[in-house]
Structure formats: structure tokens, C-alpha cells
């Protein structure tokens, strides 16, 4: 297993799994799309701040923050990360750059934003990390919310996404409360993740009738190696790089 995952992605699992895991609860989400559409969503480092208002508006993750994507040599696994306390540009410039992007809701404020405060936990400045292992496993760290996601194909256009939310045995009551509060961001009702439940089906519905069509967008070139930014589809390409030979395509 360690050989399959490799050191680059393995070390990114280790930084999240720093204690003895404790399950906080589970859920399952039925997606009406092919499993690969969901996996592409996970591997796509670019859509998050365009689609998810919570990421952009509350500066949880922006492309103007430091961040990047690590891709295993095989292409099979990936980890994208944000270090949102380290801005590449100042806040005003970041707001300017996002000004025309609908996901930034300038006037949207929370009455109780306390759950968005992140507790120091990982001993580094990575605030969000989305990691995938080929073909169907995801480890998510969004602030202090940690979840495992298993992507299970249920047919050509149906997928079950199983969520397991965890904390650690070492957590005190305050940390558990924070993880439960931040779980509002993810899962089927998550301020961020609910949108991922719907977008795959939007694409699935658009496919019939356009099966002979194709479009190619070479965002970030056509390589599939690690990059020190997330304005790229390198980790999406790396998925297909790993998938194609296995399927004989």
C-alpha cells in the first residue's frame, strides 16, 4: 500500500492523520452522475473558488492564497492544498481580482461566523487539503473538518458517495464541537459540498445529444505533474493518465 501511494501523497495523509481516529458519524449521498464526474470534481483544483461562495466570500480558499497541487509520479493520486494565511497578494487586490466572479458575495455576512475560525492543529499553515487516491478514495481537510469519502459506482449514471467524518481520540470537547460545527461545510447539506452533489448531474444531463462533440481546454498546459499553484487541470489529466491504460484506451 505504501508503495502504491508513494511518499509525496503519503506524507500528506500523515499530516492529517496525526492521532487515533474517532468516528463522529457517517452519511451517504446519492449522485445522479457517473462516478468519474465526481472524481474529476475532486481532482479539479480550479472550480472550488468559482463555484463555492463559502470558500471565496469567507476567504477559506482563494486562488490568490498560497497553494498548489501535488501529484504522484504515477499520476494516480493527488493532493491540492491552500495556505490561506499566506496571501500571494494583499486582501484588497484579492477582492479586486475576484470582483467579477459571482462566487464572491460581497454583502453576504453570517450572523454567527464563529464556526469558521480554525484551531491550530496540524503544525503547518495548510488550511485546506483535498487528497485523492486512485481510483475512488478522498481524504478531506477543510480547516478542522476531516472526512473520508468513498466513491462507489452504482451504474453508468449513479454514484454513491459515502462520508465518514472523523476526529481523534485526543480531541477535547472544544475541538469536537468545532469539528461538528465545521461539518456544516461538507456532506450532502454542506455549505460547500452540497453544490458538488448537484453539478455532476448538470453535466450528466448535458451529455446526451452531444456525444459526438468535443472541446479541449488545456488549462495549465497538458502535463500532469505537481505545480505550485491551482490554476491548472494537471490533477484531472493525471487521473485520465492513470485510467486510460488500465481500461485499454
Amino acid at each position: 500500500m505504501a508503495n502504491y501511494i508513494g511518499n509525496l501523497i503519503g506524507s500528506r495523509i500523515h499530516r492529517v492523520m496525526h492521532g487515533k481516529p474517532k468516528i463522529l458519524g457517517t452519511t451517504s449521498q446519492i449522485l445522479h452522475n457517473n462516478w468519474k464526474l465526481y472524481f474529476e470534481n475532486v481532482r479539479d483544483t480550479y472550480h472550488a473558488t468559482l463555484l463555492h461562495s463559502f470558500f471565496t466570500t469567507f476567504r477559506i480558499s482563494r486562488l490568490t492564497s498560497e497553494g498548489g497541487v501535488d501529484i504522484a509520479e504515477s499520476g494516480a493520486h493527488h493532493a491540492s492544498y491552500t495556505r490561506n494565511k499566506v496571501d500571494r497578494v494583499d486582501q484588497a487586490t484579492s477582492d479586486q481580482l475576484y470582483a467579477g466572479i459571482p462566487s464572491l458575495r460581497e454583502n453576504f455576512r453570517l450572523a454567527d461566523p464563529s464556526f469558521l475560525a480554525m484551531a491550530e492543529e496540524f503544525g503547518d499553515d495548510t488550511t485546506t487539503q483535498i487528497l485523492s487516491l486512485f481510483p475512488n478514495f478522498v481524504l478531506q481537510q477543510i480547516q478542522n473538518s476531516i472526512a473520508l469519502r468513498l466513491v462507489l459506482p452504482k451504474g453508468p449514471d449513479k454514484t454513491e458517495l459515502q462520508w465518514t467524518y472523523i476526529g481523534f481520540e485526543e480531541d477535547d470537547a472544544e475541538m469536537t464541537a468545532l469539528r461538528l460545527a465545521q461539518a456544516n461545510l461538507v456532506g450532502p447539506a454542506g455549505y460547500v459540498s452540497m453544490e458538488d452533489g448537484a453539478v455532476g448531474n448538470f453535466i450528466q444531463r448535458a451529455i446526451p445529444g452531444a456525444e459526438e462533440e468535443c472541446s479541449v481546454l488545456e488549462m495549465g498546459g497538458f502535463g500532469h505533474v505537481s505545480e505550485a499553484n491551482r490554476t491548472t487541470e494537471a490533477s484531472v489529466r493525471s487521473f485520465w493518465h492513470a485510467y486510460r491504460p488500465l481500461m485499454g484506451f
Partner: protein
Amino acid sequence: MRLEAVVRRLELEQLYTDYVHCLDADELEHWPDFFTEDCLYRVTSAENYEAGMPLGLIHATSRNMLKDRVSALREANIYEPQRYRHLVSSIKIGEELGETLDLVANFIVVRTMQEGDMTLFGAGRYVDQVKHANGTWKFARKTVVLDSRQIDTLLAIPL
């Protein structure tokens, strides 16, 4: 049944009636008014609930967090237009303890999407604690326990 008990039951049935009409009529801005300020609102599955797992798919520890849920649905989140139809029945009224009262009520929710697709979206029970204040009952705790662990597509509108 004593007359006070009959009145009490009618009051509580009215509370659930008003609650589900508020949600089904898309009057979400009034939804937090059904709760006390320091309420606990949680949506979970029977599996989590019975195993004592604390996770909530929606997990709010104040009325303000409920208001935020509504403003996020109105202003921030992207999801397809949809509506719910709640049916609540079999309200089981527990012992009164001071100002509070424990309740369990069954519900089913049918969800209809903008194109007309209709599904039985959820069935389960409300495990609630209500509190009497200023002549009305408010939810101090509401745990929405869904019988199934599966959520179809997403859970946007509260239950």
C-alpha cells in the same frame, strides 16, 4: 384525557402544523422563529443517532446559525429550485419537566424538483424538546432523525 391535556395536545399539534407550513411554503425567513435563541438543531440518520454519534448533516447550536443557513440558501448556495411537502403525525408527548417538554413525532417529506420529478425524500422522526415562553412553544432542541442514511443529491431546505 383531562381538559388541560387536550389543550396541550392541540397547542403542540398547532406548533408542528405551523412549522411544516413555514418550510413547505418557502417562508424560510420565519423558520428560525420556531426555535429558542440557544437551540440545538441537528439533522442525522437513525444509524448515527442510535450509535450515539454526534454528527449532524446540519448542525446548529444557536438560532443565529439557523438564520445563516437560510441566508446561505437565499444568497450563496447553488441548487435547483425544489419544494417539500411534510406530513407530520403520531405526536408522542412526554413528561413535562419545568418549562420543557419532550416530544417525538413522525414525518415524511416528499420533494418535488422544478421539472416535476417527485421523490419520497425522507422519512423519520423528530426527537424534540420544546420550551414554553411568552405564551408560545419553541423548539429548544430538534433532532431530525432520518430512517435512511442516504440523501438524494443534496439537502438544501431544512427538514
